[in-house]
């Protein structure tokens, strides 16, 4: 990453020339993107990545394909940056379908004036997360837009993976009697981002939980191949996933609030602002639904993985008496509330 990049002024910032199709753009691609994403000797650059079908077919019987656009304020936060999110998010979307992630694309929209050093940090984080997940970033694109047309940097990643024949994970496959698990503390990412924005004047040690979950999923699926449902709990949090699960599987999901793993600092932030960790975003947490007879086995498998140490059983599925899916949260007082999805983001309370 020590190469010199043309088209960058003394202040080390991206200019419109870096998206102009000329030598400055070529230099940006070579010195920043290819330098980070290519392993081994430089390959011939084609307009598309080519994936060998025979190898893919040996790994499974279905191709999984997903895409996600990433915007975050601030671009860098404790525990990661927009690049970490962009790789982990897409890897996790593949993994929770039971797919082994194979390859990713990455498309960047850069604002004129973006610090080159920041872009390098983002790209390096992407390379690190990809290496951690064991996937390659095989194709990409870059555009530069005028300063006010984009807030610093947007990243879009797409990914392909292969699903083994024995997995039929679906959000609609939850059965009455099934048990709901999560792989660790809820809301770490959402709370870390809120605090990283700096306008709360709250000092915490919170870190985003951003991590690729494919090896955790692999561990879980080896232990319990009959996982019924799995989702990563990003925007909308665990509450969002459970609402989708209840609706798609047409079941009543009962969550035991006392069993929810929540980091004490996240609990504190939520208490001050009137937020609910169930609704906060995660970037390294998934919800898994398994048959009750495999629940303890699934829990032990998750807890054996570094990203599942705080895994917990948080609820159960029941047949819905009303014929409509719903999520109930039961607390230590025996009180129950209906979990309803807010129409937009959660907003802090006034007092």
């Amino acid at each position, binding site marked *: 990453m020590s190469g010199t990049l043309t088209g960058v002024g003394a202040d080390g910032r991206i200019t419109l020339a870096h998206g102009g199709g000329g030598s400055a753009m070529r230099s940006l691609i070579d010195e920043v993107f290819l330098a980070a994403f290519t392993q081994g000797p430089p390959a011939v650059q084609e307009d598309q990545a080519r994936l060998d079908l025979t190898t893919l077919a040996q790994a499974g019987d279905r191709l999984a394909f997903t895409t996600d656009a990433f915007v975050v304020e601030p671009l860098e936060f404790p525990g990661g940056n927009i690049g970490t999110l962009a790789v982990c998010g897409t890897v996790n979307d593949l993994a929770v379908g039971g797919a082994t992630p194979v390859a990713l694309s990455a498309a960047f929209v850069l604002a004129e004036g973006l610090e080159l050093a920041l872009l390098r940090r983002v790209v390096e984080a992407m390379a690190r997360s990809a290496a951690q997940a064991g996937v390659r970033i095989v194709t990409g694109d870059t555009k530069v837009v005028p300063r006010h047309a984009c807030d610093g940097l947007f990243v879009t990643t797409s990914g392909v993976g292969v699903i083994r024949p024995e997995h039929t994970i679906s959000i609609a496959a939850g059965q009455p009697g099934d048990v709901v698990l999560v792989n660790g503390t809820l809301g770490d990412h959402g709370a870390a981002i809120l605090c990283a924005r700096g306008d*709360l004047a709250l000092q915490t040690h919170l870190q985003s939980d951003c991590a690729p979950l494919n090896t955790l999923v692999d561990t879980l699926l080896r232990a319990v191949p009959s996982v019924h449902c799995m989702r990563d709990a990003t925007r909308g949090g665990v509450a969002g996933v459970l609402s989708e699960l209840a609706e798609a599987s047409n079941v009543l999901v009962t969550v035991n609030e006392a069993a929810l793993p929540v980091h*004490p600092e996240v609990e504190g932030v939520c208490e001050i602002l009137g937020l609910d960790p169930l609704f906060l975003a995660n970037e390294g947490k998934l919800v898994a639904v398994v048959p009750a007879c495999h629940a303890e086995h699934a829990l032990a498998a998750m807890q054996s993985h570094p990203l599942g140490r705080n895994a917990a059983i948080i609820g159960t599925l029941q047949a819905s008496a009303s014929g409509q899916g*719903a999520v109930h949260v039961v607390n230590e007082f025996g*009180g129950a*509330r209906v979990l309803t999805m807010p129409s937009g983001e959660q*907003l*802090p*309370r006034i*007092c």
Partner: protein
Amino acid sequence: MQFVKEFRNPHLAEALLAQINLVAERIGRTRKRPVTVMEVCGGHTHTIFRYGLDRRLPANIEFAHGPGCPVCVLPKGRIEDAIAIAHKPGVILTTFGDAMRVPGGSGSLLQARAAGADVRMVYSPLDALALARANPERQVVFFALGFETTAPSTALTVLRAGAEKISNFSILCQHITIIPTLRALLEQPDFAVDGFIGPGHVSMVIGTEPYAFIAQEFKRPLVVAGFEPLDILQSLLMVLLQIEAGDARVENQYARVVAAQGNRAAMAAIARVYEVREACEWRGLGQIAGSGLQLRAEWSRFDAEKRFAVLPHHLADQEQCRCGDVLTGRIKPPQCQAFGRACSPDHPSGALMVSSEGACAAYYEYHGVGEAA
């Protein structure tokens, strides 16, 4: 979470519930009508529903949910005033998070932002003042709302703006006070509330003396309460014990936060900056004399209504909604025609559905719409 979790101990709650049951049983021997206790504050309403306390009460004890949720009682016309100011050229309109979703006549502040107005969420009025310092070419307006809980921080911000001679900052003042509204409720002939759980945060500022009239004039007990489930249960027990003994006194359960004399510095700031508004509209309750605050003449240069020459909007409440009847304890939310149908947290048409601290939203979230039938 120290000093919070202790007050959520389910075992201690059972002990308090057992005592509440005993007192209720003794009261029931001589009294046929159920005892209705109003929790004034929206924060209390939220706790009651979140912990299912209402479902644990003996049959002859009921909660009525009072008007102490500043977001709920925010009149639609006032939202329109804020939106009108937000759309003026060069304006940055700031306010608290949960005020941004409240629907006015034409939409919410969030929708105004989507339509191009510069509307920003702040956590404190001082953040709005900081925005004014950082953007001297813009007009920064803080839409100030809340009871005496938030009024002092707005007042101190106006004083700071005055001291720093910041000329591009102003406030749209919708601060309200609870005492005149409690009096208005008590003066209604069919107001069937036997005692009060008094607001904790407001009392932290105003102290306990302003409630004396409730005990002396209207012969109802009031216990100032904290916000955790054990606080609510203990306060309810204290109210019931007074009712059993035929007492009507003001007591303070929240002594770990509330001093009898309140917070003198905060009250001094309020007195310095605001004066009482002749009448103030409350969503769901209508106009209540002397229940609002406005900037004193000497601070009128910070008054956004004057600066932007906004003609106050007045919009009637939805006729189908019976917020007033819920607020006065005449009906429970599911007995309102609109509940869960024309009025839900996603599409609130009545005041009490607007914030999670409103009685209807709390019913909707914690009891589900199933009860409407």
